[in-house]
């Protein structure tokens, strides 16, 4: 019995220690990425190349999801609002939920699974095939050459993708609310504009998406760089990128929402 508890405690301690060590590695890695970021902006060609892979290739999935989520929001919102005779508030409902929450969060989740996993797999594969080691021997810092451009491409892409997601979502909501259900066009936009504050709602939404972008990009490049250099190692790292990113996005979203919007929720 005592033995069992001791065994369990030892296991717990070991996993906590491993977790903390990894967190430390990730932090040091982040500092290294920031230090090595100078050349990324001095040579925009690499950054543009990665922007294409992280941003442009994620466009379709983000735009389509945004459109559909906006349409579903409007349909479901109508069901509720019509009971209170407040269907004119549809614009507010759609815009606020997209700009504050769904835009940054869902775009972040989609980005993690589309671009984040690809970044991890790519860097992991470069490690497995000794391409990173080859760079190091050629006196080229792989963090500056491979990791930093991908990190910054992610940081730049996600806020833009989140804004596009929200925009398409609002358009989808408009299609359903105004064109399909027949809510007054002026009321839809007018109420939205009266209720949504550009700094408070839109600005905080953008801040959220920037924070998520940093988190997801860092997780993606770190998992790739830290992957065990085997086929199984890379596939495990790719999975970890998606799972960790999702959890981190949701946790950060809660924390940010508490700080940003608590004022209006309470009083």
């Amino acid at each position, binding site marked *: 019995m005592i033995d069992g508890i001791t065994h369990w405690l030892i296991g717990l301690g070991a996993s906590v220690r491993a977790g903390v060590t990894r967190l430390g590695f990730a932090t040091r890695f982040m500092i290294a990425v920031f230090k090595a970021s100078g050349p990324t902006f001095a040579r925009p*060609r690499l950054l543009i190349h990665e922007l294409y892979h992280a941003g442009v290739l994620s466009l379709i999935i983000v735009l389509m999801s945004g459109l559909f989520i906006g349409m579903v929001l409007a349909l479901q919102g109508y069901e509720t609002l019509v009971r209170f005779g407040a269907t004119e508030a549809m614009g507010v409902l759609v815009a606020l939920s997209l*700009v504050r929450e769904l835009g940054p969060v869902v775009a972040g989740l989609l980005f993690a699974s589309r671009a984040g996993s690809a970044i991890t797999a790519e860097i992991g594969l470069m490690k497995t095939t000794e391409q990173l080691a080859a760079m190091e021997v050629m006196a080229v810092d792989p963090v500056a050459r491979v990791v930093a451009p991908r990190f910054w491409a992610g940081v730049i892409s996600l806020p833009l993708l989140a804004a596009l997601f929200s925009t398409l979502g609002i358009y989808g909501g408009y299609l359903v609310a105004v064109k399909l259900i027949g809510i007054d066009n002026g009321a839809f936009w007018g109420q939205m504009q009266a209720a949504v504050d*550009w700094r408070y709602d839109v600005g905080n939404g953008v801040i959220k998406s920037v924070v998520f972008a940093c988190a997801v990009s860092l997780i993606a490049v770190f998992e790739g760089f830290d992957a065990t250099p085997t086929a199984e190692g890379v596939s495990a790292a790719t999975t970890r990128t998606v799972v960790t990113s999702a959890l981190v996005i949701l946790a950060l979203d809660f924390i940010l929402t508490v700080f940003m919007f608590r004022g209006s929720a309470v009083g």
Partner: protein
Amino acid sequence: MNKRTIDLWVGIFVAIGLSALFFLALKVGNLLNFKEERNGYELMARFENIGNLKPRAPVKSAGVVVGRIEKIRLDPKTYEAEVRIHLENQYQFSRDTIATIYTNGLLGEQFIGLEAGGDSEYLKDEESIKKTQSAIQIEKLISQFMFSQAQKSPDTPDAPTGNAAPAAGVKKK
């Protein structure tokens, strides 16, 4: 994939991404109006009770949005609510303007309505609106109604005077 195609796509991506941001700020978030507001002026108004009024709620005159509520605080000496109102420069109000807290529909959000008076002088930045009317509280209305009903009926020996008491009286019945 050659460099020009990649450049083109990245250019398109960044351009539509930025225009989406502008769309959200301008069309959805009404940034243009906000800029006008920044050029406005601020007034103070004191209310006995503000009900559910919140910061950033609209200030309307004759139903037109003319400004927003900037800040709400409780005056620790008089126990009145002190509301800071931001108004656009193009709207000037006379010194005897009445500020009233209205509710949008039965359950909607609350806002401040301004009714201009006849004074020839206008309110200036940082001045106070003297005449205010507090929010109508539905609970209070109901209790007043109950109270008057209770007084009319003869079989109630002790006429309640407080706000909460009429409810108890109703229960006794």
